[in-house]
């Protein structure tokens, strides 16, 4: 990997890592002076820079890479990204299943602060959304942008900076929760210094994407790139605005949000719902729009539906966040806008899902035989189901029943397990043999096993939480003839207990599938390469050679 970098790039890596180590030491020193938790994170940063430094130093004296490499796609960071993503998947889903059991049996905390639900839950959400999902999005975006632009990544240094720098953000986030560092904003828990670091990483990511697109040899920009770009651009905006805060001290972890009261709540849920929209939806739609037609070997069903879907999704989602705050101190008119735009959002969402499923017309025999493609098909179905459910739950009277119950948890997991995770696994099963130049995955049977475990796990999870949530919501609003509430909160907890166990079992099935995927991917990588490379990519234009197809003017 390092031997593929030029000496100049290796030096740049050393400089960045040295600066990072110095920042880590400074954080540790300033934190220690005030007895602040910042010192722990200073050591985390220092240790991280040293761990990354090791391979850079090891490969530092390798000979300069041949110039011919520039005539091919740059896939090293994608490969590392896939592996990192799978490590986060095991970690994040493992913690998720642990907290699922913890909810069923709340005594499993060993009387230790780090093991309480309040600290482990964000470890789970950050581990799966940002660790697993984010790394997968970065890795696949590097792949898709190169293939659909027929251009090599704009340079070799920034993809590594983005991928590895992003890992540092995730590690700071997760380790912080365990020792009690959080700004208590859901999905935006990391404190100010981690947030600033993510801004740096993200700006480099955006620039890399734009620079690579600018080098494209295709006249048009493919729809997957629209979605990836929307993901990168809007996540930057959301992240910066929602995390505006004043640090209590530059030598401490604590900061105070720039917003207060209902404005804070509204900003948080504008962020929160658009994180669902642009992180968990737009980015993964980019994945869907490339890997599904590529794997099915069918044309996208409708270019026009792609356009209407994209602009509908990006426009309507922006308004929908306030549906998280129905029946609160938020003014009525903001709730109205949140609900109505959520309803209008349904159609563009279904256009995207329908466009994907209609693309499979003429490839259903492949869906039957190829579990990787079936992962993607099932993901599109779950995407359609959960967007319907989301619009439905945004209707105020429905929300009155569903809000604060496990129904919300069911909805989220139908989305993240059924949609985001399945499309990612489908994409990885397609991508791993392509990138490592193998004929196929090590074991197609294990891909099948994974598919059914993941599907069964998702269904068990979602049905358990639907039952639990609706029972819970109904119990909360059941009245006696005397005009008083029938059930105490404790009664609802007792009613939910069997569903909590079912949920944990569903999660365990899903986690088992992920472990099988790790094994299968690992064995595919370890298998010696066949002589012919079956990646099936259109090659980059070679220097001196005439341009292949005549690029069309942009319309």
């Amino acid at each position, binding site marked *: 990997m390092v031997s593929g970098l030029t000496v100049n790039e290796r030096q740049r890596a050393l400089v960045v890592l040295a600066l990072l180590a110095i920042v880590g030491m400074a954080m540790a020193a300033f934190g220690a002076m005030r007895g602040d938790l910042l010192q722990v994170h200073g050591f985390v940063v220092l240790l991280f820079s040293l761990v990354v430094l090791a391979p850079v130093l090891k490969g530092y004296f390798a000979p300069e890479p041949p110039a011919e490499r520039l005539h091919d796609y740059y896939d090293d960071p994608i490969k590392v990204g896939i592996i990192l993503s799978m490590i986060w998947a095991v970690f994040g889903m493992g913690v998720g299943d642990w907290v699922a059991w913890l909810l069923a049996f709340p005594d499993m905390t060993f009387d230790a602060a780090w093991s309480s639900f309040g600290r482990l839950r964000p470890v789970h959400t950050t581990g799966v959304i940002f660790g697993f999902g984010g790394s997968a999005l970065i890795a696949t975006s590097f792949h898709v942008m190169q*293939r*659909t632009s*027929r251009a090599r990544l704009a340079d070799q240094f920034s993809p590594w900076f983005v991928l590895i720098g992003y890992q540092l953000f995730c590690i700071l986030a997760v380790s912080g929760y365990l020792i009690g560092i959080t700004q208590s904003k859901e999905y935006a828990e990391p404190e100010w210094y981690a947030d600033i670091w993510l801004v740096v990483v993200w700006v480099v990511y955006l620039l890399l994407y734009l620079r690579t697109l600018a080098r494209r040899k*295709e006249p*048009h920009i*493919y729809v997957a790139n629209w979605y990836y770009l929307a993901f990168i651009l809007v996540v930057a905006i959301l992240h910066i605005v929602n995390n505006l805060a004043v640090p209590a001290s530059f030598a401490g972890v604590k900061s105070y949000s720039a917003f207060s009261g209902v404005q804070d709540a509204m900003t948080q849920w504008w962020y929160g719902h658009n994180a669902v929209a642009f992180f968990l939806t737009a980015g993964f739609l980019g994945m869907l729009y*490339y890997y599904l*037609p*590529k794997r099915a*070997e*069918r*044309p*996208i*069903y*409708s*270019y*026009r*539906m792609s356009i*209407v879907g994209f602009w*509908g999704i990006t426009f309507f989602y922006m308004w929908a966040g306030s549906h998280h705050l129905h*029946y609160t101190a938020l*003014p*009525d*008119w903001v*709730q*109205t*806008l949140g*609900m*109505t*735009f959520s*309803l*209008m959002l*349904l*159609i*563009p969402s*279904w*256009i995207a899902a*329908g466009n994907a499923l*209609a693309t499979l*017309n*003429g490839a259903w025999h492949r869906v039957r035989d190829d579990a990787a493609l079936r992962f993607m098909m099932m993901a599109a179905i779950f995407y359609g189901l959960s967007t319907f459910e989301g619009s439905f739950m945004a209707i105020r009277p429905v929300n009155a029943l569903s809000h604060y119950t496990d129904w919300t948890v069911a909805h989220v997991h139908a989305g993240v397990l059924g949609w985001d995770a399945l499309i990612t696994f489908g994409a990885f099963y397609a991508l791993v043999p392509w990138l490592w130049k193998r004929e196929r995955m090590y074991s197609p049977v294990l891909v099948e096993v994974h598919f059914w475990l993941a599907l069964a796990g998702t269904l068990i999870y979602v049905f358990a939480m639907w039952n639990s949530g609706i029972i819970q919501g109904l119990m909360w609003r059941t009245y*006696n003839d*005397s*005009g*008083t*509430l*029938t*059930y*105490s*909160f*404790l*009664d609802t907890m*007792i009613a939910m207990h069997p569903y909590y166990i079912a949920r944990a079992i569903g999660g365990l099935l899903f986690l088992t599938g992920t472990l099988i995927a790790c094994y299968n991917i690992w064995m595919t990588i370890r298998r010696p390469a066949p002589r012919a490379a079956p990646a*099936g*990519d*259109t090659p980059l234009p070679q220097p001196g050679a005439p341009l292949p*197809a*005549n690029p*069309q*003017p942009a319309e």
Partner: protein
Amino acid sequence: MAVEEHKRERDPRTGHMMTGHEWNGIKELNTPVPRVVWIFLILTFLFGLGYWIMMPAWPIGTTYTKGLLDTNQHKIVTAKVQRAATDRARWTDQIAARDIGAVRADPALMAFVREDGHRLFGDNCAACHGINATGGQGRGFPNLTDGDWLWGGSPDEIAHTIAVGVNSPASPETRVSQMLAFGRDGLLDNDTVIAVATYVQSLSDPASAKGKAAAITKGREAFAANCAVCHGPQGHGNQQLGVPNLTDGTWLYGGDFDSIYTSIYEGRHGEMPAWEHRLTPVERRILTLYLLDKGGRS
């Protein structure tokens, strides 16, 4: 190939035209957006439009469009809460006004008490006393169904305990009670603590005294000198001070030797919150009735 040639290409499978775009082998059909999609897109927009006209919707400067229905969720919920309170008043007024004994004798009122008491107890008391009010086994939360009361089981005493709590910083009137840490604070040496624990255990469990005559004698003397002032010369306790009876086999913190030893050595200082700020007088009265009912039935 020119653009026009691409446009003429037709997908043999679906019969739709291609756009002529291609990325790494991925092509696109130029299929029109199905009419049903436009219809539903328009329908959802029309619904939104109608909703905006009827309901508070769009901000304008410092105010917003009020909507034809002129609704306000705060007014709605306030009215609903008031209506519900009026609805409940037909029986809550009677419970508040009538004598406790009269309420207990009225089956219709007691049916309300059992319904609402279950919810009130579950939401406020069950976290410590358990959903069935049977207390926490050996963890200092008394069983409220066994007729054995620390601070008295009359309606007034129970109501007072609920209102002011025990050792509660939230109420100046709170009931105060503390078991001293005789061992830890050096009031008694360790051997004496062991002897007193042996003696106290024997009060409710005579069989445990077998073969420990010396310890019993020593424990009895130390008990008379140190413990009897609160627990009484016979260890029967004192409900005026919330002092438990040590002879009845009912234990707050466990009746085995180790638990008794720990109670004497480390002391005990349980706390019950005062509920007078959180629960209304009627709600506390319902809880009192609910407990009398529970205790009476067990």
